[in-house]
């Protein structure tokens, strides 16, 4: 999957607009979901369950361009992974702290990748593309599409912030007459439920909901 990718040219600061970019590489849904499960602490199923995964991936590519997105995913793929279980099922010790530190260094601390990574989190949680900081535009150029906007009406409805706090989006997904008498149901972090079940093995110790320690 993402490991099969060859590396893009490193250190490229001036990235042409995606429409001007030639090349066979395009960011895949698998990479986007692998990255997104790490930074949102929601499972791949929950992310796909919003029905917006493709919309968001397209949005990121549309605004910042394919090459930066590919760089982001490749930086993510290079992070140390949780070692696979040995044949007897024992898990080798993982190093979540080390991984977090490297996450911060190589992604969130990167002047180009960091703001894009944060924007992906915001996309998932609130369904809004926030205009990138001026410093990003200084380095990478101004993008015409880079204005703050709600991606679609569904993006508001499907924002992860609502399930994260056990609430529903006001004006949508009505929970039914009288449901306000019951306390909110805050779902268990699905990464805990699914870590062992995730057959593609992206369990990595980064997940904590609400998101926090990494950023």
């Amino acid at each position, binding site marked *: 999957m993402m490991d099969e990718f060859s590396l893009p040219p490193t250190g490229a600061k001036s990235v042409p607009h995606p429409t001007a970019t030639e090349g066979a590489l395009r960011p895949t849904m698998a990479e986007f979901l692998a990255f997104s499960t790490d930074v949102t602490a929601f*499972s791949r199923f929950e992310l796909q369950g919003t029905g917006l995964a493709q919309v968001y991936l397209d949005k990121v590519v549309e605004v910042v361009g394919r090459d930066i997105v590919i760089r982001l995913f490749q930086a993510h793929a290079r992070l140390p992974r949780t070692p696979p279980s040995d044949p007897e099922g024992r898990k080798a010790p993982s190093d979540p702290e080390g991984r977090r530190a490297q996450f911060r260094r190589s992604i969130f601390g990167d002047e180009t990748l960091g703001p894009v990574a944060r924007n992906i989190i915001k996309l998932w949680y609130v369904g809004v593309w926030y205009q990138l900081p001026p410093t990003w535009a200084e380095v990478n150029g101004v993008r015409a599409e880079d204005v703050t906007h709600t991606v679609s009406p569904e993006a508001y409805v499907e924002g992860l912030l609502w399930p994260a706090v056990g609430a529903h989006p006001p004006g949508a*997904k009505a*929970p039914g007459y009288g449901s306000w008498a019951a306390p909110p149901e805050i779902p268990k972090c699905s990464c805990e439920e699914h870590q062992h079940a995730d057959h593609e093995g992206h369990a990595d110790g980064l997940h904590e909901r609400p998101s926090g320690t990494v950023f």
Partner: protein
Amino acid sequence: MKWDKQQAVDVDTNRAGVAMTETMGTSEEKLRYLRTQLHRAMQLEHATIPPYLMALYSLKPGSNLDAQNILRVIVVEEMLHLTLAANLLNAVGGLPDLTVDGFVPRYPAPLPDGETAFTVNLAPFSPDTLETFLKIESPVPPAPDAALRGTRRVLYGALSSGLGSTTDEKRFATIGEFYRDIEATLNQLYEDMGPDRLFTGAVDRQVTSNYYYSGGGELFPVTDIASANRAIQLIVQQGEGYTESVHDAEGEIAHYYRFYQLKVGRYYQRNDPPDGPSGPPLDVDWEAVFPVGKNLSMDDYRHLPEVRHAAAAFNESYGSFLRLLTDAFNGRPQILSEAVPMMFRFRDKFLQLVHYPLPDGRHAAPTFEIGPRRCGP
């Protein structure tokens, strides 16, 4: 209110039901038969809900608003019919049970009362799906649609279910006929036994509008012959309706005609003939639908732990929903208020599955595999 025989049609197709009622023996036997048929009525009303929900939730958000609205109204009314059938059963001393093995059919399935002319699928909204819905709700005598006119459906009284089959020979032409047989049996028992021996169910087992808010129409307790007949009439009128008229006395459109509007792309307005809606046009976008897999089962998810987990959780909570309804229909109507938020949670879980693309390009969906699998019909 008595059934309007003038309106109620087609003496020919009614004969079988009447004949069976006449051949039955003692009042006790007839009462047992009535209770069984009312249980089947509940099963029948419920069996339409998963397919209708599947079609409804396969519609992409922001699209097909007319279809969304029509499907939602019909599902709400099916819930009302289910509750009215439970009230009828309770009124004559029966014990509603939605947890009995086989209550929820395994799709694809004939309608649970053994209808064999067509099977019902759990499938996304499509022209084929709509045709099936038109068959389910087909009025007596059938259909303004020429394609349906030749179809003579046979309903067997004996259900392919765990409810027992005391009436293997019994055949009905339509769902309306199925109810007409119930009505005939009920009224004959009323004459034979009188109200005190027929309506033996405790009144506090009745679900009333105090416990059940519904846009689907009035929910009322069944306590005597008048309210019993009124309940049957409401179910048939809202459901299949009559061939003579699109609108009923209250100006409501029966389910068949609601679906027919989607087929022809136009709303009915008052005084329209059944085959000629002349109201505003209605948009159907057959493409704005998630390509949900047809009749998916847990087996389809065997290599997808996350989906399997979500689908199993859905089935489990649907099972507890049916248990809750059973409790509510057995003397605790006040707990129905808990069913409401429960249903809305289903919707969210349902949509999560429907949004999920499977590796083969189809989308996931709930499987509605509730309880142990039956070995056969």
